[in-house]
């Protein structure tokens, strides 16, 4: 059984020492969130994740959800855990105080989300989806809808869903068939089938609020004719309590590779009563509004699972005695040396660790920018933060889930045969993490978003939000001898990223297929280089304390490991990008 200890020290380090989290209190509305307050939140979050959620992770995976006659039962213990979670106020931490929320900064919420994902991703799906529905409704709903639904979503007595996918359309939502027919009272009647609906039906809350994309008959064709609706499982009665059963029912649940304790439902809408959120045919606008937070949250899933896997693998590598060190026995008094003496084991552990800690810094940077974009009094600062979010969101979603998956795979490898059996829980991380590369916009779509939409927007202005700080940092530190072994590789990788960016922008303008062919490699190059910058900065923070504090010493060494062993991938990626897509596209379809 794996155990989990929330990496609170590292989290605080990233939040305060690297990202300057203390200045969050200078943003209007965040004045009260001093270090003490936030530390207390993190500690309490660690407690519930370690003690309540994590112990249910493997049992939930073994048992899965059960479906019978339209009713879904979550695994044993989930209902109780959810009650504890809700009573502790965890559904409301990142919500608007006007609706009963605690209004905590996104930067802190992101750390809490990471802990939840490490402890029990399946469980995290339920409040996670509710939060997505909350964001869309908060941003675009009418006052009446907000008043009726938001307090319940915030306090967690009701949960939410996002109903997008249909049997024949996932990525290409323009083909959607679910229709919404306007009624005389201003409401709509929804009919159609939605699939892959996480938390579509379950026994954790007294009501479920579905946010549904559908088309109003007679509207524009394709994606421009999609509207967003709210349709609850139970229609609220005069007192706002769950009343009449609405025409939305769960037809079945999916049998999946991972996140088995999360119910993934087929939802049938049969003349279900619903209300429009936002303007007719502007449903995608509301979707885009929540997309940045949601995609960051999915990236953090990859990060959280990688952290859990690393903790299990590091503990195992220290206690499992097997074979001797190549340079001679390290613990001759024992039957064998622990795994940790082997360079290849260290390679795997440090790969996990370097990705995890680097990705954490990136996630918190982005989350802090979400806070700045929302709260900063200066418009220029808000725009800069929005630009940063626009360009990094696809990178965070795809890169964090990709390297997260790789890291959990390494976790299995370190365990050997014991990783492959279910008992140790290492393979569950791999299975659970696999979906994060697919949902909320498959990673290939993220790459296209990056090169096709974000990169060319405003002649590359979004890129500036990242490229200029990195360029300035390299420029400012190029003669800093203490950082020379870090700035050198960073500068080289950044040069590759610049070259690739100019190349993709140029060839992509003339031949879109070329941009498409480069997209995934480019996104990874982008992610690796961004992490290199963050590692250099972390090393800079830690260097002065490296001799006195093993934590900081480990930081500096991990930074070096990252530069020496992981960053060189950027060279290969640049070669692949420059090689282009001609050969791929030369294949006749029939030859596949």
């Amino acid at each position, binding site marked *: 059984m794996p155990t989990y200890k929330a990496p609170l020290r590292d989290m605080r380090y990233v939040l305060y020492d690297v990202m300057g989290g203390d200045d969050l209190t200078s943003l209007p509305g965040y004045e009260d969130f001093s270090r003490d307050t936030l530390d207390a939140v993190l500690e309490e979050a660690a407690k519930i994740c370690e003690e309540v959620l994590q112990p249910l992770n493997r049992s939930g995976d073994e048992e899965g959800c059960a479906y019978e006659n339209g009713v879904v039962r979550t695994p044993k213990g989930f209902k109780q855990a959810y009650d504890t979670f809700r009573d502790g106020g965890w559904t409301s931490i990142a919500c608007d105080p006007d609706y009963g929320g605690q209004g905590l900064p996104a930067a802190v919420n992101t750390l809490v989300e990471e802990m939840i994902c490490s402890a029990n991703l399946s469980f995290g799906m339920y409040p996670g989806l509710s939060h997505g529905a909350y964001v869309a409704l908060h941003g675009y709903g009418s006052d009446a809808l907000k008043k009726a639904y938001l307090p319940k979503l915030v306090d967690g007595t009701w949960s939410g869903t996002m109903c997008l996918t249909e049997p024949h359309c996932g990525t290409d939502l323009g083909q959607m068939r679910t229709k919404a027919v306007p009624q005389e009272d201003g409401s709509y009647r929804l009919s159609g089938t939605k699939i892959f609906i996480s938390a579509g039906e379950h026994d954790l809350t007294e009501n479920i609020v579905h946010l549904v994309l559908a088309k109003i008959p007679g509207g524009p064709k394709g994606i421009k004719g999609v509207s967003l609706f709210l349709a609850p499982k139970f229609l609220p009665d005069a007192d706002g309590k769950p009343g009449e059963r609405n025409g939305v029912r769960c037809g079945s649940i999916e049998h999946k590779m991972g996140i088995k304790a999360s119910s993934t439902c087929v939802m049938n809408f049969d003349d279900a009563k619903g209300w429009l959120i936002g303007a007719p045919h502007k449903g995608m606008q509301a979707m885009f509004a929540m997309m940045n937070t949601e995609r960051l949250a999915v990236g953090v899933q990859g990060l959280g699972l990688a952290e859990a896997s690393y903790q299990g693998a590091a503990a195992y590598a220290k206690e499992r005695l097997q074979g001797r060190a190549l340079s001679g026995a390290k613990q001759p008094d024992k039957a064998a040396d622990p795994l940790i003496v082997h360079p290849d084991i260290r390679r795997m552990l440090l790969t996990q660790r370097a990705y995890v800690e680097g990705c954490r810094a990136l996630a918190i940077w982005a989350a802090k920018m979400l806070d700045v974009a929302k709260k900063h009094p200066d418009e220029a600062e808000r725009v800069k933060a929005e630009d940063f979010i626009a360009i990094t969101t696809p990178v965070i979603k795809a890169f964090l889930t990709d390297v997260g998956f790789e890291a959990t795979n390494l976790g299995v490898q370190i365990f050997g045969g014991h990783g492959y059996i279910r008992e140790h829980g290492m393979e569950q991380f791999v299975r659970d993490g696999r979906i994060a590369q697919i949902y909320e916009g498959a990673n290939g779509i993220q790459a296209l978003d990056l090169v096709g939409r974000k990169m060319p927007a405003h002649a590359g*202005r979004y890129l*500036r939000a990242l490229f*200029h700080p990195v360029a300035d940092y390299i420029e400012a530190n190029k003669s800093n001898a203490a950082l020379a072994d870090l700035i050198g590789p960073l500068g080289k990788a950044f040069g590759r990223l610049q070259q690739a960016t100019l190349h993709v*922008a140029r060839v992509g303008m003339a031949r879109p297929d070329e941009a498409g062919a480069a997209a995934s490699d480019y996104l990874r190059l982008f992610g690796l280089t961004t992490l290199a910058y963050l590692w250099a900065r972390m090393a800079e923070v830690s260097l002065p304390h490296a001799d006195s504090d093993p934590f900081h010493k480990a930081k500096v060494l991990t930074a070096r490991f990252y530069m020496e062993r992981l960053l060189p991938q950027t060279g290969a990626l640049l070669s692949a990008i420059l090689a282009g897509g001609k050969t791929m596209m030369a294949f006749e379809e029939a030859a596949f």
Partner: protein
Amino acid sequence: MQINKVAVIGAGVMGAGIAAQVANAGVPVVLLDIVPAGADNRNAVAEGAVAKMLKTEPAPFMSKAAAKLVTTGNIEDHLDLLRDCDWIVEVVVEKLDVKQALYKKIDAHRKPEAIVSSNTSTIPLANLVEGMPQSFAEKFIITHFFNPPRYMRLLELVTSPLNSADTIKTVTDFCDYKLGKGVVVCKDRPGFIANRLGVYWLQSAVVLAFEHKLQIEEADAIIGKPLGIPKTGVFGLLDLIGLDLMPHINASMASALPREDAFHGMNQPLPLVERMIKEGYTGRKGKGGFYRLNREKGKLKEAIDLATGDYRAQARARVEAVDEAGKDLKKLLTHDSAPGRYAWDVVRKTLCYAAALVGDAADDIVSIDEAMRLGYAWKWGPFELLDKIGVDWFVEKLHAEGGLVPPILQAAAGKTFYRVENGKRQALTLNGDYVTLERPEGVLLLADIKLTQKPVLKNASASVWDIGDGVLCFEFTSMMNSLDADIVMLLNQTIQLVQKNHKALVIYNEGSNFTVGANLGLALFAANVAAWSEIEQLVGLGQFAYKALKYAPFPVVSAPSGMALGGGCEILLHSDAIQAHAESYIGLVEVGVGLIPGWGGCKEMLARWQAHKKTPKGPMPAVAQVFEYISTARVAKSAAEARDMLILRDGDGVTMNRNRLLFDAKAKALKLVENYQPPEKPVYRLPGPSGKLALKMAVDGFAKLGKATKHDIVVSEALANILTGGETEYFDELNEDKILELERQNFMKLVRNPDSLARIEHMLETGKPLRN
């Protein structure tokens, strides 16, 4: 015979404009009008017209000097002034009796060989000369200008059998060479060519928009860009012309055209338009037209709803038929929607009418196409449009609908209206044969050269053509002719090539603008990704290439037309000579996007002003003058103005007719080949820090007056750094490489400034400068 002096009688908008264009050509002109009743100043009308033109934008005069060539007067006291005029143009009200009375007066005062013409747009020549002596009729023709006469290139010429060949040639040559017009010979038929077809087209497009229940934004989006028609479309154009003018034009067409003419079918009363005219909504000159700017609602753009007749917010013109069709005209014309049916209806009627004009308004299709291109700014004339659509497809569709097929369309069965045979353009005639199209003497076009040649050199952004007699022509081919690394690289290659095998180089192209300057999109993108070394490298490469151009061992002549801005202006400044189209708009406009000229523009302008004999002595005058031009992004609005700014020097030439530009530039280059010596390297003596301080104080003064913004101050300081020579003293002699280095340094400083990047982005996205 040659025309050395001209008289224009009638100083309305057209008459005054014609007089201005004659003056623009450097030819003295007399402008007369009536004596206004009870006026103290008996010349008030003509004088007022000239005064007004000096304030009009776009300006009728190309320079202030041109205005001085106009002598004003009135037709009671000053008819004597006609005595030495070689050409007298009548531009008075469209009333036969008024005109004929005037002709009698003119005839009494003109010299016998003087040519007389009318600018009438509706009255047949035969009627005009009725009752006039034979000697007058022999010298009388119609010269029909388009408004505004300086900018519209069409001149319709109607002659009579009495005219001698010399009379016709004299006027044709003058209008072609001196006034820069495309002269199209028309038959003596109502409305001649352009307005005959143009009025029919406009009227049909309006009537059919009502019939198909379209909104005006949709109609303009359809009968606009997709068909190569200016984006004002139909309703936007009517707003420009004036709604109140249309009933008059229509009535005169209706009375002049035979009963069987298709125009009558379209000449229907439009109650909404009549109401608008009555209420003063006559277009841009009135309270508004089909479109208006509602100032009560904070400059809200509004459009008339054709169904209700009320103004409403202007909608973004998205028409599915247009979007889906893209460049496929057939798809647009067959789109199953109201816009698609409207497109077909308008195009069908217009093209059939155009076809019916062959043999009626003109003898050939070429005149009709030319008239519509030059007179209505259509990208393709009707027969070129038919070739694009496919004549057989068009005719088949006409047949299917049971419509009549005009003879020229029958003659075109299985053919195209234009073809290229043995490198010569040919056009179809009514009997189904082709006739070869010969360019007039002195016209040389790249478009023709391209029919028979492949480029000597070529990359993604430029091509080099062999234009004969050892001269190569460098052509920009990039998007909007913007300058980029590819152009700079090909320029270097071209310099090598000319040196080896040729005698001279001409830089010229046939785009609507010579170039609007460097590709800002690429520059901004590179700046956004902090690719500083790439940017600096490109600045350096450009400096190197332009310098190589300047000191190449062969002459280089640049021949701009339209805009030559920023890096485009800098190319001109590094050429041995400039042969500019009169309509050239030249300037160093970099500060508008928060930058400074970095490809030698500063050093060349300094050198020009330092060398100019009228520049006062001392360290500051030249520097201050150049600083003023560049810091205000001053653009010369004609070749004549560019000469005032010393962008053009003595020996540089101006060509009035766009089509003659390349021929003139080539001739100039060949002339320079004899005993060619590259220019001497200039030596600069600049004021240094004290001069910089003086410029800074001037800018601070402007800032205090609110005329300079925060970032203007930053950009001006960088410019002052360069122009005053950095840390130099007046006694030091600097070479041009030193100035280039300062240009580079200061350019790089500015391109890193977020306020400059904001300016570039704003310019790219809105087309307007950001005043931050």
